[in-house]
C-alpha cells in the first residue's frame, strides 16, 4: 500500500516498522456510524499507531482547502497499524467529513500524535469519566490504567440509549462501569456528576479521576471531586491551528499561568483550569463557524435537493445552538 521504498536501503530497513514515502496517504480503512451525528473512522498510519499513547491527539485536514481540526485519538491498533477517531458532526468540517470520509478515501492531512501523553501510572483506583465527545477518547485511558494494574471505574454519559456505543469495549477493561443517560433509557438516569457521586460514595478511596468531554462537563466533574480532594485530570479542547506550540491559539489558564494545550497539555489539573476562560475562548469564531456551516448546508441542498442524509435547516440550527460548534475540537 505504501509506495516507494527508500532507495537502496531496504535491507537495513528490514524489521523496522518505519516507512517513508514522498507523500503519506492517510487512507480510511473502516467506518462505523454510531448515530446520525457520531461516526468512527479507522485510518491506516502504522507509524502513528506505534507511537500513539493514551491522551494524545491528532490534527486532521480533510481536504486541501480544509481547516486543521484537533481530534483526540480514540484508539490505536499497533498490529493492524491503524488509529481510530470518533467524530461528532457539529460544525462545518465535521459534517462535511461525515459525508466525504468513506472507506477507501483518504484524508489530506493527518499529523500527530500530539500533546504530552496522559500519566497512567500511580493511582490504585481510578475513575475514568467520558461525556458526549469525550466517551471515545476516555477508552484508551481506561484500558491503559487497567493494564497498569489499577481498579478502573468507567463512567460515561449519553443523552439517550440510542447514542450509547462501545459499551462492550468499556466493560472489557473496567472493573465497574456506570452509564448515565439524561432520560434514564440506559443505566442510571441523571447527569454524569450523579454517576461520579455514586462512585465516590461506594469507593471513598478513589485516587484519581480523569474526565474528558465538553468543558462544561469537565468543570462539573472538577467541582464534584473538589470537596473530596480527589486528584482530577481533565483533557482540555481549545481551538488550535498548528498543534505544535506555534500559534498560541490554544492557550488556557491553569492555576493563573498561561499554558499551551498542544504542547504543555492537553491534560491539566482540573481543579486549576479556568473553565470560564476556556469556554469563552471556544466561542472565538462561532460567527464564522455558523456562516460556514450555513453556506455549506446551502450548497449541499443545491447540489442534492431533498437528500435524506443531510441536516435540514432547523436541524442544523439546533445543532449549532448546542453548547458550541467548536466542541468538535478535540472531542472525538
Amino acid at each position: 500500500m505504501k509506495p516507494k521504498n527508500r532507495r537502496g536501503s531496504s535491507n537495513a530497513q528490514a524489521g523496522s516498522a518505519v516507512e517513508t514515502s514522498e507523500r503519506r496517504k492517510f487512507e480510511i480503512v473502516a467506518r462505523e456510524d454510531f448515530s446520525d451525528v457520531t461516526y468512527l473512522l479507522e485510518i491506516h498510519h502504522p507509524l502513528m499507531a506505534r507511537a500513539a499513547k493514551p491522551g494524545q491527539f491528532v490534527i486532521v485536514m480533510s481536504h486541501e482547502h480544509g481547516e486543521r481540526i484537533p481530534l483526540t485519538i480514540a484508539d490505536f491498533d499497533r498490529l493492524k497499524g491503524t488509529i481510530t477517531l470518533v467524530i461528532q458532526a457539529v460544525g462545518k468540517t465535521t459534517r462535511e467529513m461525515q459525508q466525504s470520509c468513506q472507506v477507501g478515501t483518504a484524508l489530506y492531512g493527518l499529523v500527530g500524535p500530539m500533546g504530552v501523553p496522559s500519566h497512567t501510572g500511580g493511582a490504585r483506583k481510578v475513575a475514568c469519566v467520558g461525556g458526549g465527545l469525550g466517551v471515545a477518547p476516555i477508552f484508551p485511558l481506561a484500558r491503559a490504567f487497567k493494564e497498569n494494574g489499577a481498579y478502573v471505574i468507567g463512567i460515561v454519559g449519553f443523552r439517550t440509549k440510542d447514542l450509547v456505543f462501545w459499551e462492550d469495549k468499556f466493560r472489557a477493561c473496567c472493573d465497574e462501569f456506570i452509564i448515565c443517560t439524561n432520560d434514564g433509557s440506559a443505566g442510571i438516569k441523571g447527569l454524569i456528576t450523579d454517576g461520579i457521586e455514586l462512585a465516590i460514595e461506594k469507593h471513598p478511596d478513589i485516587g484519581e479521576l480523569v474526565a474528558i468531554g465538553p468543558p462544561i462537563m469537565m468543570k462539573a466533574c472538577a467541582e464534584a471531586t473538589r470537596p473530596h480532594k480527589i486528584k482530577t485530570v481533565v483533557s482540555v479542547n481549545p481551538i488550535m491551528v498548528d498543534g505544535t506550540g506555534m500559534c498560541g491559539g490554544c492557550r488556557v489558564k491553569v492555576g493563573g499561568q498561561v499554558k499551551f494545550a498542544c504542547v504543555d497539555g492537553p491534560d491539566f489539573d482540573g481543579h486549576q483550569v479556568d473553565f470560564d476562560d476556556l469556554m469563552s475562548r471556544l466561542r472565538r469564531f462561532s460567527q464564522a463557524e455558523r456562516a460556514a456551516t450555513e453556506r455549506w448546508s446551502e450548497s449541499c441542498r443545491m447540489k442534492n435537493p431533498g437528500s435524506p442524509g443531510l441536516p435540514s435547516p432547523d436541524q442544523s440550527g439546533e445543532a449549532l445552538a448546542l453548547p458550541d460548534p467548536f466542541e468538535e475540537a478535540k472531542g472525538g
Partner: protein
Amino acid sequence: MAKKKTIRTIPQKRAPMRQQDAHRRAKNFEEVNCGYGLEDALHEAERCLDCPDAACIEGCPVGIDIPGFIMKIGAKDFRGAYDLITQTNLLPAICGRVCPQESQCEGVCPVGETLEPVAIGRLERWVGDLAIAEGWSNIPYIEPNGFKVGIVGSGPAGMACAADMAKAGCDVTVYEAFHQAGGVLRYGIPDFRLPNEVIDAEVDNLRKLGIKFECNTLVGRLFTIEQMIDEMDYDAVFIGTGAGYPQLMGIPGDSLNGVLSANELLTRCNLMRAREFPNYDTPVPIGRRVAVIGSGNTAMDALRVCLRLGAEKVHCIYRRTQAESPARAEELHHAEEEGVEFHWLTSPVEILDDGKGKVRAMRCIRMELGEPDASGRRRPVPVAGSEFEFETDMVVFAIGTNANPIIGQTSKLNLDKRGYIEADASLATSMAGVFAGGDIVTGAATVIEAMGAGRKAARSMKAYLGIRNADAAGLTERQGSSGKLFGIDLNERNFARVRVA
C-alpha cells in the same frame, strides 16, 4: 575588465524598485515590490565597483560572491550570475526579498559611504526570479555516498542544510509538521513580501537534488530523534525546528477574544489561506481598529496583513522609538506608506474587555529611553502617571518568540536554560551525529542567518561523516574564495567520495 570604475563614473542614483501603489496594495495580497526589469538590473549592476576586498561578501552570512555575480549581470551572462549565486545560496529569489540587506551586504558596501549602496538584494532577487521564469536549476552531478541524513523542519535552516548534504551525495529526507514545506517562509512571511510560487519553485529545486520532503510528520512525537539514529538508520540528523513559541505579555486581559499572537494571525492568513474564507475553511479574526504590539518584521507583517484583511485603522505600538525598531527599513517604510499609524514609546499595561469576553480597549503607558541595556539599546522606562486608554478591538502580540519545546520534551538533548538546544561552535549537539542550527539554537533571527547556520551545520555533518573536503571547508570559512588548486575551487563542495568504511 574594460575600464576602471570609480565612485564618480558609476550611475549615481539607484535604479528605483517599481512598486504597487500604496493605496491599491493595502487592499490586496499581491507582491508590493514588482521587481527590477532588465534595464534596472543592468543600470544597478553598473554601480558596483567590484572592490578587490569585497566587504559585501564578508557582510553576507553565507558569503555569496556578490561582486562576481553582479559583474556577470553587467556582462549579460545572467545564467552565469545565477550559477555563481547558487554555489553558495540555493534560494536567491527568497533571500533577495527577505534578507535585511541594509545591515548585511549593503550596509558595508563602500558605494554607500557617499551614495546609496548598490542594491544587492534587488539584483539577487532579479536573478532568482529570472531563474524561476526560465526554469533554470543547478543540479550538480551527485555521486550517492550511502549516507542517510534526516532534517527536522523544512524552514530556511533545514532547507539550506538539506541542499548541502544532498549535493555531497547523501540521501536526504526533510520532515515537516505542517502539510506544506517551507516553515516560516510559508506560514510567517505574507504573500505580498514573498509569494508562495517563489517558495514552491525553490522547494522544487531542492526536490530536483533528490531531497525528499515528508510533510505531516511531527518529529519528536511520531518518532524521536533517538529513534531516527537508532532505528531509522539515519547517519546524521539536523534539527532546525525554529523558535516558534509565541510570547505573550502576561498583562491582564491577554486571554480575551480578539487578542492573539502574530504567529496565529499570520499562520491562519498565509498557510491556511483564511483571507479567502469561506472558500478555505479556516477563519481569521478581523478587527476594525487593530493594535499590533512590537515593531519587528513580524509586527510589520501582522500590521500589513490586518490592513489587507479590511481593518479600518491599524496601529503599531512600540515601547522604544523608530531608531530601535528591529524591522527592515523597507518594511517600516512600506507600512507607513500604506497607512499604518505608529505609536512610539508606548506600552500596553492592560487589555480591557467589553463585558462579553472581547477586547474593548487597551490601557497604555508612555515610555522614555533610559540607560542602555544588554542589547546596547536604551532601555525604555515607564513615565509615571502617563497612563491612557486606547480604543481597539483586536490586539496582536508580535513581541518575539521562544524555542519550540517539542524536541526538548521528547529527546535527551541538552538544552540551555531558556529551552534552546545546546550546540557547540560546529553546531554539534550533546548527541553524537545530531546537529542543530537556526532559531532553535540562537533564538529568533533572520532567514539568512538560519540558512547560514544550516550550511555551517552541513559542513560539520560532512566532517562527522568523513565526507571529503568537509574539514578544509570548515576551517577556512570564506578565506580562499579566490583560491584554486588544479583549476578546482578550494571551496568546491559539489562532489564527495564514499567513505571507505
